[in-house]
């Protein structure tokens, strides 16, 4: 015990100092302000944690500083918005996505196919290029003509901002149902499938080195069949699906939106790791440049698709009520009235922002903790963070684990984005600011420590919110009559200053492992 | 003070948590001797060595060099006192040429290291010394090849060259033959012996392969479980029952 204390003296001292500051901060603030500010801090902390924990897992295991993480967080928010506010767009997109991906699911079959095809050397060289060109041409012909209900950035009345506003007002959207008027449905479906098959086979053929003959089992086809079925069903029952989603209870729709955002984030992460990050493990600096480049691309895509103006995603009905019984006085009355606010210790607290998000943050914290501590994958991840070579030496397929961790990390970020969208709104800059928050949180808590990510995020959230609050009410400096009102730039400065101080005292952060 | 003793450790100990890696070790190394430290795996040789070279700080005890206390000197001062060390795992500048590697080593004692406006080739003494050392370790033909392209044996020679270049009085060699092909070992040992004899240098050598040291060393210290088990001439050590049991207990063959 004594030895433990002595070893962690520095961390303990730092924590005590922070605690003293915190108690000092609570002085001169009435209890309802305190509760609200505290809960807001928890809320920002929870979202920061979702970004930071994924970042830290990726950095710890893969040594990749994923500077695109903030952008991915932002993309998660926009995907969640799309599914929630424009489910018809989502239903329309399902078919082409599933069809384009389906060809890649047949990966295991291609070696067999390429072994069957007997061609001269020259043809062998031309063939992949030809296939890819045909595939790109097909996609270029079909996709612009494929009907997808969407929005129009140039026309304000049909822009995401307007749709978002209408949805939050409860006005039903007049969905301009997209119809196949430029291309016949059969041609579109067949063409997309063909393009996918050609494209994936062509890409496969580039890689001449694959010579192993695979054992074909039902698994080799399962992915393809599932994707094909999803695509076709979404196509045939498109209008029914759209009607179903539009008629769905907004709570369930929100749930679906969050799930879709998380899963597409995970998919995006896996794709990114497999194609772009993996080639660069031997050159860490280039990963920086790559992720910076990807980040710029991501922001541009978001600007091109969803536009530059900021808007807020409506809250699910569970947190959106404003009936006679609101603000709720207890949780049971909230449950009955689905109030957007609740009275806690005299303060009006927003149920979604300040209760729901911290709870989800806690849930994710525990879930990932269990994943890390109790499962085989978690064990491999933890061991890999400690000593990557050793895990490789044990004959574990580290590559696949890497891809999974990357997918998990990005999935956590997009989950955070989708959850943050109703409370913090969607903007092109949200990614960058939360990436900075997450970096600071990790530097404070320890770059590769999972509990450190939680602690750091919590501190960052709380400090920011308290400083903002003091910007409004002013802080009286002890023993003087001066009332200091921190100006807005002090908010980032306070956390940055904390980071610099903590790093100078403890280069590995509060909970980081010692070298 | 006995001027015949150049390096001395006084009750040197190092603890890692509960593990006592080096336990009250007292060793006296005579000037111009080739002193080998051997022991089975886990005997604490490498830790002891790191204590000697200042890479880690001891929990207690002192390292004395020519009568002065060097225990808390920063690592980069050691060579200025005249102590150079090599590493068990080849530790060179992989992307620089052999010549650069050795020159960096010999440049360390130059006075004009901060003359950033001067071309480095104008340090003529340093240049001369570099060629001398490269010739001595037999890497003249490969002098302008990047160090990473060298075969392992040559990298060990380069490592040796890098500690010879600043001309230290005491050479600390951490398993100089580690990972070398068996037929290259005698060549390197002969080189070490020649350097020690002709240059009037003190060599402290860590090995876990006993055969290597028997033929070349003047004094052998055997370490076991962090303590000194025995000390003496090769013949005495070979005859020592305790040493035999320690090595046999560690499942190690002793075929002298």
């Amino acid at each position: 015990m004594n030895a433990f204390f002595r070893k962690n003296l520095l961390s303990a001292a730092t924590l005590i100092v922070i605690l003293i500051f915190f108690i000092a901060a609570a002085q001169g603030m009435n209890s309802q302000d305190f509760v609200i500010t505290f809960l807001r801090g928890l809320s920002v902390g929870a979202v920061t944690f979702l970004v930071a924990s994924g970042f830290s897992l990726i950095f710890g295991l893969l040594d990749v500083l994923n500077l695109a993480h903030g952008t991915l967080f932002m993309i998660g928010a926009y995907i969640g918005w799309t599914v929630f506010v424009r489910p018809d767009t989502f239903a329309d997109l399902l078919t082409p996505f599933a069809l384009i991906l389906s060809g890649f699911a047949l990966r295991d079959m291609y070696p067999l196919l390429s072994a069957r095809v007997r061609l001269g050397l020259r043809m062998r060289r031309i063939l992949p290029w030809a296939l890819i060109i045909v595939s790109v041409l097909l996609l270029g012909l079909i996709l612009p003509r494929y009907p997808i209900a969407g929005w129009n950035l140039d026309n304000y009345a049909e822009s995401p901002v307007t749709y978002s506003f209408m949805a939050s007002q409860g006005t039903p959207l007049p969905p301009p149902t997209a119809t196949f008027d430029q291309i016949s449905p059969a041609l579109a479906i067949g063409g997309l499938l063909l393009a996918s098959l050609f494209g994936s086979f062509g890409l496969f053929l580039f890689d001449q080195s694959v010579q192993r003959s695979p054992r074909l089992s039902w698994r080799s086809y399962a992915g393809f069949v599932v994707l094909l079925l999803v695509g076709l069903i979404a196509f045939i029952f498109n209008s029914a699906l759209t009607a179903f989603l539009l008629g769905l209870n907004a709570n369930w729709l929100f749930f679906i939106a969050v799930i879709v955002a998380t899963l597409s984030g995970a998919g995006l992460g896996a794709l990114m790791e497999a194609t772009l990050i993996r080639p660069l493990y031997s050159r860490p600096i280039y990963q920086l440049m790559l992720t910076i480049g990807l980040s710029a691309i991501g922001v541009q895509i978001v600007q091109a698709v969803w536009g530059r103006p900021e808007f807020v995603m409506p809250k699910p009905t569970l947190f959106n009520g404003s009936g006679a019984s609101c603000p709720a006085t207890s949780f049971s009355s909230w449950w009955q009235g689905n109030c957007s606010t609740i009275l806690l210790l005299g303060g009006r607290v927003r149920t979604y922002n300040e209760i729901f998000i911290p709870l989800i943050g806690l849930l994710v914290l525990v879930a990932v903790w269990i994943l890390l501590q109790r499962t085989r994958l978690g064990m491999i991840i933890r061991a890999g963070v400690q000593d990557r070579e050793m895990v490789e030496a044990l004959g574990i397929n580290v590559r696949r684990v890497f891809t999974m961790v990357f997918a998990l990390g990005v999935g956590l970020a997009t989950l955070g984005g989708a959850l943050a969208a109703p409370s913090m709104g969607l903007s092109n800059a949200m990614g960058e600011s939360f990436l900075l928050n997450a970096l600071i949180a990790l530097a404070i808590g320890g770059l590769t420590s999972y509990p450190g990510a939680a602690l750091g995020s919590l501190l960052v959230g709380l400090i920011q919110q308290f400083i903002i609050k003091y910007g409004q009410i002013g802080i009286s400096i002890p023993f003087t009559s001066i009332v200091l009102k921190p100006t807005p730039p002090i908010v980032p400065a306070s956390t940055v200053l904390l980071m610099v101080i903590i790093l100078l005292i403890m280069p590995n952060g509060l909970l980081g492992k010692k070298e | 003070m006995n001027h015949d003793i150049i390096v001395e450790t006084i009750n040197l100990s190092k603890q890692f948590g509960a593990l006592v890696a080096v336990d009250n070790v007292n060793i006296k190394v005579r000037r111009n001797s080739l002193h080998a430290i051997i022991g089975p795996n886990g005997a604490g040789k490498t830790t002891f060595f790191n204590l000697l070279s200042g890479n880690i700080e001891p929990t207690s005890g002192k390292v004395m060099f020519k009568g002065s206390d060097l225990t808390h000197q920063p690592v980069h001062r050691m060579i200025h006192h005249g102590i150079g060390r090599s590493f068990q795992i080849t530790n060179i500048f992989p992307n620089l040429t052999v010549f650069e590697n050795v020159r960096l080593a010999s440049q360390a004692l130059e006075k004009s290291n901060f003359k950033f406006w001067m071309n480095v080739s104008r340090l003529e003494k340093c240049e001369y010394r570099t060629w001398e050392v490269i010739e001595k370790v037999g890497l003249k033909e490969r002098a302008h090849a990047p160090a990473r392209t060298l075969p392992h044996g040559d990298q060990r020679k380069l490592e040796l060259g890098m500690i010879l270049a600043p001309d230290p009085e005491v050479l600390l060699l951490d398993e100089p033959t580690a990972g070398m092909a068996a037929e290259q070992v005698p060549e390197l040992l002969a080189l070490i012996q020649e350097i020690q004899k002709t240059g009037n240098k003190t060599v402290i050598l860590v090995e876990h392969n006993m055969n290597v040291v028997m033929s070349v060393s003047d004094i052998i210290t055997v370490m076991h479980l962090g303590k000194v088990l025995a000390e003496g001439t090769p013949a005495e050590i070979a005859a020592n029952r305790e040493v035999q049991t320690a090595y046999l207990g560690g499942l190690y063959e002793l075929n002298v």
Partner: protein
Amino acid sequence: MQKKAFSFFHNNRASLIVLFALVLLPFIVGLFEGASPIVVWENQGGISKFVEGLGIEIFILALYALSYDLIFGVTGLLSFGHAMFFAVGAYLTGIALKSFALSLPAVIGLVFLAAILQALLFGLVLPRVKGITFALVTLGMASMFHIIVTSSELGNYTGADVGLQGVMVPSFINPANERLRFYFVALVVLILIYLLYQRFVNSPTGRVCVAIRENEGRAKMLGYNTFAFKLAALMLSSFAAALAGVLHALYQPIVSPNVADLSFTVTALLIVLIGGVGTLSGALIGAFVYRLLDFGLRRYIGENASFITGTIYVAFVLFIPYGMVGTWRLKSFRVAQGWRRLLAAFKT
């Protein structure tokens, strides 16, 4: 003696040709427009003045990137706070000229002192933090500086969010009337710093810096106090970056707080990576390519330019990993390798 001179010209013929071309460039561009060299000399040419302006921007950017290459490429220190080095020079110049009406030599002296001070500030954390933590601490310091210059409390001096404007530039170097002279001054400063850096890399100090990049622990064991060498590199780098800042403040009508931002450090990183890490000349070529690319894309494509620049960076990383100069020296493109790496994703 004659032979020595000849071999100097022979060995450096490529650099000399480039230099010669840069000196003549404003006049040649003027000729295309039909303006005689005399007109250009009197700063009246329209398009040649524009080209001079672009050239000045490139020289400033190149100087800044060069200074980053010295600490990142040569010494191996990853700093995310390099923009601060530049911004301190720019803001100090602007404030000293505008609010305190100091003379230019005095300003440069002041900037020199500030450059040393900020290098010492970074040096303060050097022994404690390494690698990515150093990057984060420097990022923190630069963010603090960014916050200070954008805070409204100092708005009278720094111009807060808008940036510093209305700097009275001494008339003999005023970029509006004496742009050609400014062009040559910037060129000369860039060349001098470049030559100084070349000397540095080949000096005893510089060789140790390279050794630190390669294997810091070993450099320490060889008997070098690596901290002192890193600090020396930081100082030299800080000085050149601050000098670039001085030129920036003199040339641009407004010093925007963006130059203290993380993205400006990233600009330096990208330029160095495009040109080739640790090559010095790569920073010059990288700045040229970066600025022209940025200019061209913005002009012809408009808003979505950074989508294309982002794609180009990604392609660079995958296919030209050693940068332009590095690839030139290796005489081999890594395109085939890049493809293979990308396609390796299809193997499980």
